[in-house]
């Protein structure tokens, strides 16, 4: 498996899951743009320190901001010609308090869905022309099962929106060599899950222990395992798997 010469853009690339994906893709030879609102430079430096050549570049950007995304793509176009692999991974959970209907404000709904769905749409629409020209592309979405409960409405709207996008893109662009996949995640062992549990009034340590036990595997999936799945799909998935939504939830959704 190698991705030599391929240009990747990973949104939310400096967070727990995103950073693992960036490291993995760079390790396979791809040049990776690390898109995030903060710490992108830190992650890029860490990746580049492990190689003789430059394999990563910070792409500080708020993907909810259309103009910023357009500027980022203009930059990538000038530097590398465009994006071959797009990982739509960025997401915000919304306000940690008052995020349930009907208390969630209009402003918070907009802020959340702009990042979680519009940001991915902007990145995808701007990536497609180059992928079509090249006759090769991979688009991936970090999604969630539609049945996820207790998740704020704009966050789940964004994640569910990825399902429609995955189905459409795979049908429409599969023959152009562009394959699309979504990874439906439940609980992931990241600092974010502790913040969310704390915001719900749970003791983070015992809540995380419960989440580990909730999975049929006895533990939550790690960011590194998610990155492995993405890399495997990007490098090896045959056309027949195009459009697949891959459940990676420890069996919670379908087996319990």
């Amino acid at each position, binding site marked *: 498996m190698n991705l030599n010469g391929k240009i990747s853009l990973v949104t939310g690339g400096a967070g727990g899951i995103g950073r693992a994906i960036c490291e993995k893709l760079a390790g396979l030879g791809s040049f990776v743009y690390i898109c995030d609102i903060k710490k992108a430079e830190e992650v890029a430096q860490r990746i580049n320190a492990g190689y003789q050549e430059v394999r990563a570049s910070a792409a500080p950007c708020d993907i909810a901001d259309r103009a910023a995304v357009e500027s980022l793509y203009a930059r990538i176009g000038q530097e590398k010609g465009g994006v071959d692999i797009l990982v739509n991974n960025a997401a915000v959970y919304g306000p940690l308090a008052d995020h349930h209907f009907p208390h969630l404000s209009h402003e918070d709904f907009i802020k959340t869905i702009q990042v979680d769905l519009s940001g991915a749409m902007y990145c995808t629409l701007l990536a497609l022309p180059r992928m079509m020209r090249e006759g090769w592309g991979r688009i991936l979405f970090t999604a969630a099962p539609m049945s996820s409960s207790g998740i704020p409405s704009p966050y789940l709207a964004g994640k*569910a929106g990825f399902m429609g996008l995955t189905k459409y893109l795979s049908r429409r662009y599969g023959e152009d060599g562009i394959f699309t996949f979504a990874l439906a995640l439940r609980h992931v062992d990241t600092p974010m899950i502790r913040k969310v549990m704390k915001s719900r009034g749970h003791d983070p340590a015992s809540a995380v222990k419960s989440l580990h036990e909730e999975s049929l595997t006895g533990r939550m999936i790690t960011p590194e395992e998610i990155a492995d799945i993405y890399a495997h799909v990007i490098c090896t998935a045959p056309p027949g798997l195009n459009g697949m939504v891959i459940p990676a939830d420890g069996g919670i959704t379908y087996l319990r």
Partner: protein
Amino acid sequence: MRAEPMMDYAGKRGVIFGASSFVGKVVASDLVQRGVHLCLLDLQNHVDPDLLQGVQSLGSDGEVISKVVTSGEEDDFIKALDQAVDELGDLDYLICAFYLERGYESQGMDDLNLDSWDQLLGDWVVNTFLVTRAAFPHLAREGGGRIVFFNATTGYTGEGEGEGEVTVEGSILECACSSALTGMMTSIARDIIPEGVSVNGVALGPNYRDDLDRILWATDFWLSGMCDYACGQILRLY
């Protein structure tokens, strides 16, 4: 022959958001003939000027009023719902039938600009959130309020309009919005069922204009007392 409705609707009160859409008109015409008092609610640039008179002329006992709101204006939605409840007396149903028929014709790749996305997301998904939020206090007042969301099976299949046709360019926006609505509904359902209000959905198939009986049956099913236990579910009309 259309099936008999599952309940007696006489005297119930409902708001139909997106009343000027094809589905909105079909549902409005049906409910008003069953004696439901209705408020036809539309976005400013989506109003069919003949709709109110057309529905009123059906000659039923149901009172019919209309309201217009501006896309994305929260205060407008709250004011319109408050006025509708004042005029109708109360609120039992909210039907979100906004559907991308007017001004959202399928576009080619060259036209797939970011403006189209921003507009559709705002008009369809964000406004559905706003109208649901504005209606909720009224629906919850005495409990038992029911909400129906309409979206499209394209959110599940990725296929565009037209049975058996290859996916049309441009429906990427529809697919994303439609599945986003499903996710939003699932989350809202969980939050509001403790207040006695349910929300369920109907996903329209590719030939929905020829599918009136099933559309009306599905609407009736979610509004009826037959399915009080259902919450956050979608009937897919493939």
